[in-house]
């Protein structure tokens, strides 16, 4: 929006021929002012307003107070645990989710539709139900937990338990992000690559992967974002031990229960900040990849 593109009445006739800024240029579709107005109002009410409240609350503590609240051992440990495990879970879900999406779109087999529907279950299940179900299975006396316990692995009430819950809730994000793209890929391109002598590995790496990479990344980032904020399913299986298995959202709840509203908001703000930073980086990678794919 620099000066020379703004219409300037004193120049007279020359103005009309000048290129208007892109956003003033009339779109082919009608209804832009209304659509934009509703978009801004809705986003403002639903997203920006609560976030502003979240940003204002910790200021009660002062900047040094916020810093102190966030560098406290217990808070730092919880943030590390939440973001670390969420990242690992999202990354593990990437290849497995890709494989699932591949199987569900590329092969025809009996029960495919049922499997396909199962992927959505973690979306549909109330998180508390998922948490209780997972805990029942992975508790030391549960069917799977017992097996793991025999070989000396603690599942429920350990970071591994949290990891399992985060895998569970993250999976559909990855699968559902990749699936439509995988379905839309032009098989002819793959066939062309084949006629040009590309072997199956080359076709997968140089033809299919670049096409689905942006959506894979988007799915993984969604799974990550969801896992960071996940509370309901994790608190049941985590064990909630300070410094060991206490996730950041639980710490927020604990702080609220101690009437430490500002401290809770500070942790919340830190989580939003870190998540936002991570999403920006992921988006940048995505744009870079999308740009390369187009060339």
């Amino acid at each position, binding site marked *: 929006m620099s000066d020379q593109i703004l219409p300037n009445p004193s120049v007279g006739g020359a103005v009309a021929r000048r290129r208007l800024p892109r956003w003033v240029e009339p779109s082919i579709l009608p209804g832009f002012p209304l659509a934009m107005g509703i978009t801004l109002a809705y986003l403002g009410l639903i*997203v920006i307003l609560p976030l502003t409240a979240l940003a204002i609350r910790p200021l009660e503590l002062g900047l040094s107070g916020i810093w102190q609240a966030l560098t*406290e051992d217990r808070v730092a440990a919880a943030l590390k645990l939440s973001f670390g495990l969420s990242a690992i879970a999202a990354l593990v879900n990437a290849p497995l989710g890709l494989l699932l999406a591949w199987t569900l779109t590329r092969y025809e087999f009996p029960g495919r539709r049922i499997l396909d529907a199962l992927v959505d279950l973690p979306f549909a299940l109330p998180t508390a139900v998922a948490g209780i179900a997972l805990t029942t299975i992975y*508790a030391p006396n549960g069917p799977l937990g017992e097996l793991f316990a025999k070989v000396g692995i603690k599942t429920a009430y350990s970071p591994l338990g949290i990891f399992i819950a985060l895998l569970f809730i993250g999976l559909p994000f990855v699968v559902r992000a990749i699936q*439509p793209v995988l379905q839309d890929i032009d098989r002819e391109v793959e066939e062309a690559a084949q006629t040009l002598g590309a072997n199956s590995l080359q076709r997968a790496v140089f033809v299919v992967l670049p096409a689905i990479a942006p959506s894979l990344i988007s799915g993984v980032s*969604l799974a990550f974002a969801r896992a960071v904020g996940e509370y309901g399913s994790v608190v049941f299986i985590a064990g*909630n*031990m300070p410094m060991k298995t206490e996730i950041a959202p639980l710490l927020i*709840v604990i702080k609220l*229960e101690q009437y430490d509203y500002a401290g809770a908001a500070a942790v919340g703000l830190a989580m939003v900040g870190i998540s936002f930073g991570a999403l920006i980086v992921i988006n940048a990678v995505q744009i870079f990849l999308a740009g390369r794919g187009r060339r």
Partner: protein
Amino acid sequence: MTDTHLSRRGLIASAAGLATVPLLGGQAFGQDKALTLLNVSYDPTRELYKQINAAYIDYWKGKTGQVIKIDQSHGGSGKQARSVIDGLQADVVTLALAADIDEIAARAKLMPANWQSRLPNNSTPYTSTIVFLVRKGNPWKIRDWPDLLKPGVGVITPNPKTSGGARWAYLAAWAYGLKNGGPAAAQAYVEKLYKNVPVLDTGARGSTTTFAQRRLGDVLLSWENEAHLTIEEFGPNFDIVYPSISILAEPPVAIVDKNVDRHKTRTLAEGYLNFLYSPLAQDIIAKNFYRPRNAVAAAKYAANFKQIALVTIDDTFGGWKKAQATHFADGGVFDKIYKPT
């Protein structure tokens, strides 16, 4: 492509927005015209108040001819207090400890600061204590507090930061240490005790589930009434062990003045709390394994309530305000237990 990205970003945005909606709600309760009382209580009192409410509805109908409705809300004591502060339209609060009602009085000014002197017995119509619930036959031979430190014993108790019952349990353990070596010994004892705790649930019910249903741990530090209830609920797979010393837990009740005045339910609410002290209610209370104030009910159910040495929050800890600040505030003694060494 770009379109799907946009819509997905929109999805995160709206999901984030939805998560904040419950915070905005909460004001809408208690608006209906019928004479309704909302009792906001703590976790293990569900069964007790279900029976009390039925009895009070009958009593009130007999007295005035009015048909009333009583709603109950249960959860961790601290969480419930926060809901009331944030606008949950409670007519009466019946919480696990005085500190939580103090917070309502101090932060939201919904009742006078001297609320606890308005009803007999420090506004506590019933008391309880903390006992041990062990597995049938008591395989670890747990008789008293020192036995909880045996290597290998798993102790189940909720997080004192979020659970009222857990705070009473923590203080009971502290009282034991205090009587056996003084403050330093108490701290050492409590630190060792929590090293044997494998899971910290957020509320008393969560811990009971962990212990009884998931069969985790060997001893549950439990409300006395919750221990009896667990045996009724899960069959005779458990034994109750009374330690040599415990704490007199006084869960207080109070009217939320600003709310009853707004709802015009003051007489009804006052009647409700006074009713808790009546012989009929005291009998229900004792039947539900809470220790009654009424001598007749106490005598009738004496077999359920073993007499053990009980310290009180006031004489041993200098009241809730002090105990809260010393032990459970951020950076307090409880936090130090979990400091990395």
